[in-house]
C-alpha cells in the first residue's frame, strides 16, 4: 500500500512537471516581452502556431528536433508580426494580440484541415523521455524531474539563464530600462525599438517551443485549438511570478499541479465530474491575479509604444 501511494504521488508529480512545461516556457517568453514594455496577449497564438508547425516539421523534416526548430521559427514569426504592429506601427498592443490570436486559431484550424488530413498525417515522431545520468537516481526529484523529455530540461535551464540575463547583464539592464522608462533608455543610447523587437521575437521562440511541447511530447499530433488557453494561463503566471523568470516558472508549476490534479481525478474516477477539476488551473490563475498581485509590479511602460520623434 505504501508502495502504491508513493507511486501514485510520483505519477502525480511527474504529470505536474510535464503539464507545467508549456505554461512555463510560454511564461518565460511573456517575461521577456513584458519586461521590454510590450504586453504579449499573443502567447496563445504563438503557442498554437508552434504546435502545428512542430507536427509539420517533425513529419517532413525527420523528427522532433526539426519539428521543434520549425515550431520556434513559427512562434518567432508571429512575434515579428506582433512587434511590427505594436512597436513599429505603435498599434494598440491588446487589440494586436487579440487579433493575432483570432488569426492563429483560424489559420491553424484551416491549415490542419488542408495539410494534415489529406496527407494522412496523424501521429508524428515525437520526443521521448531522457533519463539524465546520475540525476535521475535522486529519490523523488530524480524520476519526477530528471526522467522527462528534453523540453522540460529546456525550460528548467532557460529559467536560471534568463534570470542571469535579465538581472546581471548589460543586455538585461537595457531590457528592463526600456520597460520602465524608454525615454531615459533612449537618451542613454539604447535602441528602444530594436530591443523590443528582439524581446518579442524571443518570446515567440519560447512560446513556439511551448507549442511544440504540446504536439510533440505527449499526444504526438495536432488537434484544433490544442493550446486551450494555456497561453493566457502563462500570462497569469508572468503576473503572479512578478515578471521574474523564476517566479514565472514557480507559478507555472502551481498551475501545472492543478492541471495534473484533474488528470488524477479523471484517471481514478473519484466520482467528481471531470469538468470541475479541469476548471482548476483557470480558477487558480484568476485567484492568483486577483488576490496576490500588487498594483505597481508591472513594468511602467508596458502597453505604450515608444516614438523618439514625438518627444
Amino acid at each position, binding site marked *: 500500500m505504501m508502495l502504491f501511494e508513493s507511486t501514485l504521488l510520483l505519477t502525480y508529480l511527474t504529470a505536474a512537471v510535464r503539464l507545467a512545461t508549456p505554461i512555463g516556457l510560454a511564461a518565460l517568453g511573456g517575461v521577456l516581452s513584458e519586461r521590454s514594455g510590450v504586453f504579449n*496577449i499573443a502567447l496563445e497564438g504563438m503557442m498554437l502556431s508552434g504546435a502545428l508547425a512542430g507536427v509539420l516539421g517533425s513529419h517532413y523534416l525527420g523528427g522532433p528536433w526539426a519539428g521543434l526548430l520549425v515550431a520556434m521559427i513559427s512562434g518567432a514569426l508571429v512575434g515579428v508580426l506582433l512587434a511590427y*504592429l505594436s512597436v513599429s506601427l505603435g498599434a494598440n498592443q491588446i487589440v494586436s494580440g487579440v487579433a493575432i490570436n483570432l488569426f492563429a486559431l483560424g489559420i491553424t484550424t*484551416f491549415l490542419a484541415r*488542408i495539410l494534415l488530413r489529406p496527407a494522412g498525417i496523424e501521429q508524428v515522431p515525437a520526443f521521448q523521455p531522457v533519463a539524465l545520468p546520475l540525476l535521475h537516481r535522486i529519490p523523488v526529484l530524480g524520476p519526477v524531474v530528471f526522467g522527462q523529455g528534453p523540453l522540460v530540461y529546456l525550460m528548467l535551464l532557460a529559467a536560471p539563464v534568463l534570470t542571469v540575463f535579465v538581472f546581471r547583464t548589460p543586455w538585461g539592464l537595457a531590457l528592463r530600462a526600456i520597460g520602465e522608462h524608454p525615454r531615459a533608455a533612449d537618451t542613454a543610447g539604447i535602441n528602444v525599438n530594436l530591443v523590443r523587437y528582439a524581446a518579442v521575437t524571443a518570446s515567440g521562440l519560447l512560446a513556439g517551443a511551448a507549442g511544440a511541447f504540446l504536439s510533440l511530447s505527449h499526444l504526438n499530433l495536432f488537434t484544433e485549438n490544442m493550446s486551450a488557453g494555456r497561453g493566457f494561463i502563462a500570462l497569469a503566471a508572468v503576473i503572479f511570478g512578478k515578471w521574474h523568470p523564476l517566479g514565472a516558472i514557480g507559478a507555472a508549476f502551481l498551475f501545472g499541479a492543478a492541471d495534473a490534479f484533474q488528470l488524477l481525478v479523471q484517471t481514478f474516477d473519484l466520482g467528481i465530474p471531470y469538468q470541475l477539476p479541469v476548471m482548476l488551473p483557470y480558477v487558480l490563475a484568476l485567484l492568483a491575479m486577483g488576490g496576490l498581485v500588487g498594483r505597481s509590479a508591472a513594468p511602467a511602460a508596458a502597453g505604450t509604444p515608444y516614438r523618439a520623434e514625438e518627444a
Partner: protein
Amino acid sequence: MTLRLAATRLIPVWAVLAALMLGMLLVRLAGANPFVAYSELLRGAFADLFGFSTTLVKTTPLLFAGLGVAVALRAGLFNIGAEGQIYLGGLGATLVGVYLHGLPPVVHIPLTLFAGALAGGLWALLPIVLRVTRGVNEVITTLLMNYIGFFLVSWVVSGPLMEPGAPYPYSRALDPATNLPVLIPATDAHAGILIALFLALLLHLLFARTAYGFQLRAVGANPMASAYAGMNVRVTLVAAMVLGGALAGVAGAVEVTGLKHRLFEGFSPGYGYDAIVVAFLSNGQPLGVVAMSFFFGALRSGANIMQRSLGVPVAIVFAIQGLAVIFLAAGLAIQRRSLVLELLRARLKGGATTDAHVEAARHDAF
C-alpha cells in the same frame, strides 16, 4: 479634418476588404478557385430562404454579443469574455425554462431573457471588480472566465440538467412557453434578431443622446479628467462592463430560447470571439455593430455552403476575421501617427495646437 475623419471611418471597410483579398490566397491554397468560392459563399448566405434565414440566425448572437463588447469598449474596457458570458446567459435562461412551468409566453420569454442577462452580467462582474479595486488587467481575467464558463455549462448539461438517456450531453427541453416566435415559417429564423436590432437602436440613442452615453465616452477617453470633472469613474466602468456582460448573456439566452430549446455542451461556436471582431471593427458604434454582425453572420452562414460544395474549410472565416482586425489595428495606428505628427508640426509653427490636442490624438480610439 472632415476628409480625414471620413478616411478614419473607412479604415474598417478597407481592413475587411484587405482580409478578404488575403482570404482568396487561402482559398487557392485549399485548391479552389477564389472567385467561384466567394460567389458560392454569397449564394449560400443570401440566394435562398434557407441561406438567408441561416444568415439571420448567425447574425443574432453576434449582434447581441457584439453590442456587449462595444459597450465596454466605449468605456475603454476590453471585454474579451463575451464567450463565457454567452455560456452563462444560456445557462441562466435554461434554468428558468426548465424549472418554471405554467407561465404564459409574455411572462416566460422576458423572464428567460432577463435570467440570461443577469447571469451574463454577473459573469462580467468579477473581472471588472478586480480591475477597479486591484488594478488587475481585465483582458486576461475575462479570457480565463471564458474557459470556466464553458466547463461549467459542460458539467451542468452532463450532470444535474442532463436529459435522461441522452446520447451526448444536453439539457432537458425548456418549457415551450419560452420559445421565441419563428420569424420566417419553416426556417430557423426567430424573433431574436428583432430584439437585437431594437437593443442596438436603444444603445445608439443612449450613447448619442444621453448624459450616461457621454459619461461612458468621457471615462473611456480620459478617466483622469472625468474623475476631475466629478464623474464616478469606478461606478461607470463597472456599469459598462456588467451591461456588456448582460448583453452577451442575452445572446446565449436567445440561442437557447430561439434556436435550440435545450442547453447543449459547447453550444457557442466562438460567437463571443467573433463579437470582439465585430465590436472592434465598428469602433464601438451600435449601428456599426449591426452592419458588421450581419456581414460576419453572412460569412459564417455562406462558409458552411462553401465548405460543403468546394471543400474549403469553414475555419477560413476565422482566419479572415483575425486578418481584418490585424489590418484594422495597423490602419488606425498609421492614421493616428500621421495625425499626431501633423499636430506636432503645427505646434512647432506656433499654431493654436496644444499638447492636449496631441495627447488626445495619441489616445484616440484604440
